[in-house]
């Protein structure tokens, strides 16, 4: 990074912390600190909802995914607008009218304290782990690309976020989210413009997109019915519907966002903003990946984007083999570029030559990944995303940014990666602190303290969960693929949590025992399904409908067997 890039990143960090601290005056009581006194406009809450969902993993991983596998990932979001409509009609009015701080408070009013506590603890366990992953993923990538100290990188993301969240509460989180979304979208738009300008002058955008289409990068919708395919139209519209219902309806990090809106209508509008904007925003993210693919059709890409394993291979006995692969890769790249150029000139036979050269490059990359796997022992290099080794996908965008963009713009994109990580982390910290204080401390440990006491405990809880997230981020790096396991475990809870809320809303005869046993059974069944060898290949998007179904069946059976509902309301 040049001095101008450092200036941009440092300027961003100072600005975001200062802006967050300006909001501390609105956080003088527990209502102001955790719910912003329900005073925020729908558009700020809507942007905060999207900022919380869009982490640096999304920004870096999704662009890399589109580079390697094209636009098909967009299908993951097909259920989102439908989920927003369903939630606006059902859960949002219930939460808002009941005046709760957390989603799980509603479960005690409808069922009993044990169901509320279990749901809240599941949220706290899952979110504390995933917040660590949110910080560690970009920290690892940035530390490798720039040779930064990993611990300092984790702290550079974590500490400013903890400071402004702890002092400013949810108001600071929301208003910094608004600005951070601006930086992220601005960075993405600048990246797309830079990528389009990087195309050869005699190749139009339309011609370039036809080249991307020939390589399968424009295949957006897949109507095949295959439960093992993660991204199809059906998994997106059905599995994605349940996933987004769970995430936006039962996850405190999102529920807290729309509980801060100044009215019920504004809360609904904040969610419907995502229904309109989320897919176009995600298309923009994926287009960065597609245009990066096109950039590297006309400019030579490295054999592997992550330079660290290459250095280890070059220092090993397999250096000669790897060198031969690099030469063969350069030859195949030249053939692919010539064929792509011919395609843009209307040469009818060039498409086949392009596809042959592309397949050859893919094969060489596969052999290089096998060598890396042999030398480093990293099992991930045995898997692929599209035509790229799986661990390499996350390094495509940062490598492009740092090697091809002009000074200043590099700083802006790095600031955008920081902004994405910090906005997602801040939302999670605020939510985990709220669940800790409202569902555990105030409900179970100290029920009669003053507002000032709960405010102080809330600030301590933010700091506590922030430190936990930084420690988890550090440990997760050493454990490597365990981050994936953590994410997989998260998907196991979601469907069952949604099932409990559906049980509460739609089944009047359901009681607390049914909800509690149903929730535990749902999690157990989905966990078994996710890890059982015969079914572990089924896309995680289908775990959520399964969890809902199990909770409803078991919850109702136990409720009918144990008698009338045990509501405490």
């Amino acid at each position, binding site marked *: 990074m040049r001095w101008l890039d450092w200036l941009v990143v440092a300027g961003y960090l100072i600005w975001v912390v200062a802006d967050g601290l300006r909001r501390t005056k609105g956080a003088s009581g527990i209502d102001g600190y955790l719910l912003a006194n*329900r005073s925020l406009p729908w558009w700020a809450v809507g942007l905060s909802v999207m900022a919380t969902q869009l982490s640096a993993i999304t920004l870096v991983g999704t662009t890399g995914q589109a580079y390697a596998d094209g636009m098909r990932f967009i299908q993951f979001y097909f259920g989102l*607008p439908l989920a927003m409509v369903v939630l606006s009609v059902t859960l949002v009015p219930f939460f808002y009218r009941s*005046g709760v701080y957390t989603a799980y408070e509603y479960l005690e009013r409808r069922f009993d304290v044990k169901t509320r506590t279990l749901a809240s603890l599941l949220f706290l366990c899952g979110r504390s782990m995933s917040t660590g992953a949110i910080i560690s993923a970009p920290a690892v990538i940035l530390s490798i690309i720039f040779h930064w100290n990993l611990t300092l990188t984790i702290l550079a993301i974590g500490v400013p976020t903890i400071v402004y969240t702890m002092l400013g509460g949810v108001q600071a989180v929301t208003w910094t989210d608004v600005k951070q979304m601006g930086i992220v979208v601005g960075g993405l738009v600048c990246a797309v413009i830079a990528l389009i300008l990087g195309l050869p002058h005699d190749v139009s955008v339309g011609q370039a*997109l*036809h080249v991307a*289409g020939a390589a399968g990068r424009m*295949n957006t*919708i897949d109507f095949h019915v295959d439960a093992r395919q993660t991204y199809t139209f059906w998994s997106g519209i059905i599995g994605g519907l349940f996933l987004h219902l769970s995430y936006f309806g039962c996850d405190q990090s999102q529920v807290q966002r729309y509980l801060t809106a100044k009215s019920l209508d504004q809360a609904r509008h904040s969610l419907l903003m995502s229904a309109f904007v989320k897919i176009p925003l995600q298309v923009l993210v994926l287009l960065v990946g597609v245009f990066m693919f096109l950039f590297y059709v006309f400019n030579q890409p490295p054999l592997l984007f992550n330079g660290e394993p290459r250095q280890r291979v070059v220092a090993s006995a397999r250096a000669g083999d790897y060198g031969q692969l690099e030469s063969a890769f350069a030859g195949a790249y030249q053939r692919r570029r010539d064929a792509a150029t011919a395609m843009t000139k209307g040469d009818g036979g060039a498409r086949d030559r392009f596809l042959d050269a592309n397949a050859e490059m893919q094969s060489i990359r596969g052999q290089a990944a096998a060598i890396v796997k042999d030398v480093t022992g990293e099992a991930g290099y045995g898997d692929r995303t599209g035509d790229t080794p799986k661990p390499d996908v996350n390094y495509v965008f940062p490598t492009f940014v740092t090697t091809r963009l002009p000074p200043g713009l590099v700083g802006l994109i790095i600031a955008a990666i920081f902004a994405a990580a910090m906005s997602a982390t801040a939302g999670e910290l605020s939510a985990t602190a709220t669940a800790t204080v409202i569902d555990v401390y105030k409900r179970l440990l100290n029920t009669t303290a003053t507002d000032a006491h709960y405010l102080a405990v809330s600030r301590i809880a933010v700091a506590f969960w922030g430190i936990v997230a930084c420690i988890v981020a550090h440990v997760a790096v050493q454990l490597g693929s365990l981050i994936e396991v953590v994410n997989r475990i998260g998907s196991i809870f979601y469907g069952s949590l949604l099932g409990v809320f559906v049980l509460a809303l739609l089944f009047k005869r359901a009681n607390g025992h049914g909800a509690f046993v149903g929730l535990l059974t749902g999690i157990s069944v989905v966990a078994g399904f996710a890890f059982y060898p015969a079914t572990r290949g089924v896309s995680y998007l289908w775990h959520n409908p399964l969890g809902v179904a199990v909770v409803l069946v078991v919850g109702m059976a136990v409720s009918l067997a144990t008698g009338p509902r045990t509501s405490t309301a």
Partner: protein
Amino acid sequence: MPSVTDTRPMGRIYALVILCHAAVITALWWTGHVFSR
């Protein structure tokens, strides 16, 4: 206190969400179809 009385009918907005979503999916399919030929 939460303001819960200022709710307006949302049916048209929900219908608009569904229509726009269908249009976006159709546009994505069409774009993919055109550029993948």
